[in-house]
């Protein structure tokens, strides 16, 4: 099943190819009145006191190495059939610099009644996980410049983006509110390098082969829209296939994620909280990696306030622990020889958002962070030089159409 070369990423396509695919898709469909095209461009600026985020943010002048560009198109040729495609280019420091098909699907609403809809989506489908995962690359859907890193980790981002397979969905409208159920089954993106380094502690010559995975979300929204609650679940199993001269053995890894999400609005004031519990299992990876079953834990509490139609303020506390039984990272430090603060991160954030009109958005945020478990390895190749306490200033300009 998993025979890809280390450097060949199945999911990635050159930007030129993406444009051609989009053009072939859209060409003949212009005539239909349900045809829609939308997109976004997003440019970030990151400046940190220490450590790198989305490029060389630790440099004197900071970095502009965070860009996201997306274009999507959809059409409804029949009343119960919809086709949709989205291409996204993302440059995030050394972590990503590529274009990919984000979703490409056929959506068939098998039953649409007054109080419920039931249907299937086939193709490449976004993975529902928490409130934000299925739109995580789109600035206008994020509450802040970057999502809380405990739950929406950069390291496992590629893995959770989308599934090549199918989705079953059921939407119901009840007297107390609406329920939305989505269940995905499919193949996830292969060879998640960041994840491999996080688990094995170095970029091993072999690679991780991911088995077809299941994930799902049940969401409730009150009739007024003021209350949203969700429960998400994912179960992902993978094998490690050793490379030449590998010190890591052909072992098994599995991840079970449970995410609880809640949001409540009180007029112009909104409180959001999400909690992730992740059960990890590592077995048979060889003598250097004794089998273990750590449980990771992350959560955040966020509140935002709308001063008026254009101006919004936000504050958040986001905490993340690789092993909930080793919150200070002492065991981690003993086992890996790396500093203990690689095993957690605690981030206090305050920010402002200005939306002068429907098309433009400007954001500014300040973070005070203790720990570095959320940082990407690609941007921070020398783990020993990472600093425990660091501050981050970030600005972002976004446009949509």
């Amino acid at each position, binding site marked *: 099943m998993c025979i890809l070369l280390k450097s060949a990423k199945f999911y990635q396509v050159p930007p030129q190819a993406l444009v051609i695919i989009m053009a072939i898709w859209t060409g003949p469909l212009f005539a239909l009145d349900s045809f*829609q095209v939308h997109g976004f461009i997003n440019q970030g600026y990151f400046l940190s006191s220490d450590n790198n985020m989305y490029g060389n943010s630790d440099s004197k002048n900071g970095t502009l190495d965070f860009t996201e560009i997306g274009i*999507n198109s959809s059409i*409804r040729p029949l*009343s119960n059939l919809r086709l949709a495609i*989205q291409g996204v280019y993302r440059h995030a420091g050394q972590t990503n610099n590529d274009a990919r098909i984000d979703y490409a699907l056929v959506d068939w609403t098998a039953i649409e009644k007054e109080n419920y809809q039931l249907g299937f989506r086939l193709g490449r489908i976004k993975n529902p996980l928490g409130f934000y995962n*299925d739109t995580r690359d*789109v600035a*206008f859907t994020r509450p802040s410049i970057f999502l809380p890193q405990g739950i929406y980790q950069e390291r496992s981002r590629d893995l959770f983006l989308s599934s090549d397979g199918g989705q079953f969905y059921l939407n119901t409208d009840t007297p107390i509110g609406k329920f939305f159920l989505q269940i995905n089954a499919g193949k996830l993106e292969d060879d998640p390098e960041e994840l491999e380094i996080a688990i094995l502690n170095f970029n091993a010559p072999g690679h991780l082969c991911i088995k077809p995975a299941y994930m799902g979300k049940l969401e409730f929204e009150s009739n*007024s829209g003021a209350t949203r609650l969700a429960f998400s679940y994912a179960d992902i199993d993978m094998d490690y296939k050793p490379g030449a001269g590998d010190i890591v053995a052909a072992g098994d890894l599995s991840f079970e994620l449970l995410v609880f999400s809640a949001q409540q609005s009180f007029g112009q004031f909104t409180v959001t909280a999400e909690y992730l519990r992740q059960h990890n299992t590592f077995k048979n990876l060889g003598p250097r990696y004794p089998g273990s079953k750590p449980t990771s834990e992350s959560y955040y509490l966020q509140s935002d306030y709308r001063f008026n139609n254009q101006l919004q303020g936000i504050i958040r506390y986001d905490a993340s622990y690789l092993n909930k039984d080793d919150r200070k990272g002492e065991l981690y430090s003993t086992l890996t020889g790396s500093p203990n603060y690689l095993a957690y991160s605690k981030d206090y954030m305050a920010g402002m958002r200005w939306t002068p009109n429907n098309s433009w958005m400007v954001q500014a945020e300040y973070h005070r962070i203790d720990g570095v478990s959320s940082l990407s390895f690609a941007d921070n190749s020398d783990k020993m030089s990472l600093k425990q306490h660091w501050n981050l200033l970030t600005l972002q300009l976004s446009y949509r159409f």
Partner: protein
Amino acid sequence: MRQITWLLLLVLTPISLASQAVEVVSHPDLGIDSLSKHKARNIFSMRTHIWPNGDPIKVFVLNDDSDLHKQFSKHRLGIFPYKLRRVWDRYLFSGTGQVPTTVASEEEMIKAISSTKGAIGYANKGNVNVHIIEIR
């Protein structure tokens, strides 16, 4: 005290009348005379896709910043425009739904609705060529 109440009424009446002037309108052949606020919200949130007669629903709106859109959102649906936009964005960027077609002016709205089967949108009172749907 009573004088103040009357004075307030007198002052506020023209404003409230003005805000009531926006009407939900549809293609003349749709044959629906009224909708509950709940159903209207589902339609304009892009959560309901098909009319009872089986035709696809085609939703037209003005820009979020236009006064007519704000009045419509607030007085006919009872939700803030930014909340509508949030729902649309979630559907659009996750690939799970379509968004309304945005037209540049009220004239364009009337033109689009009167010429598109299954179309719904809104307009100031007194427009011809479209059918008014009462929101209960």
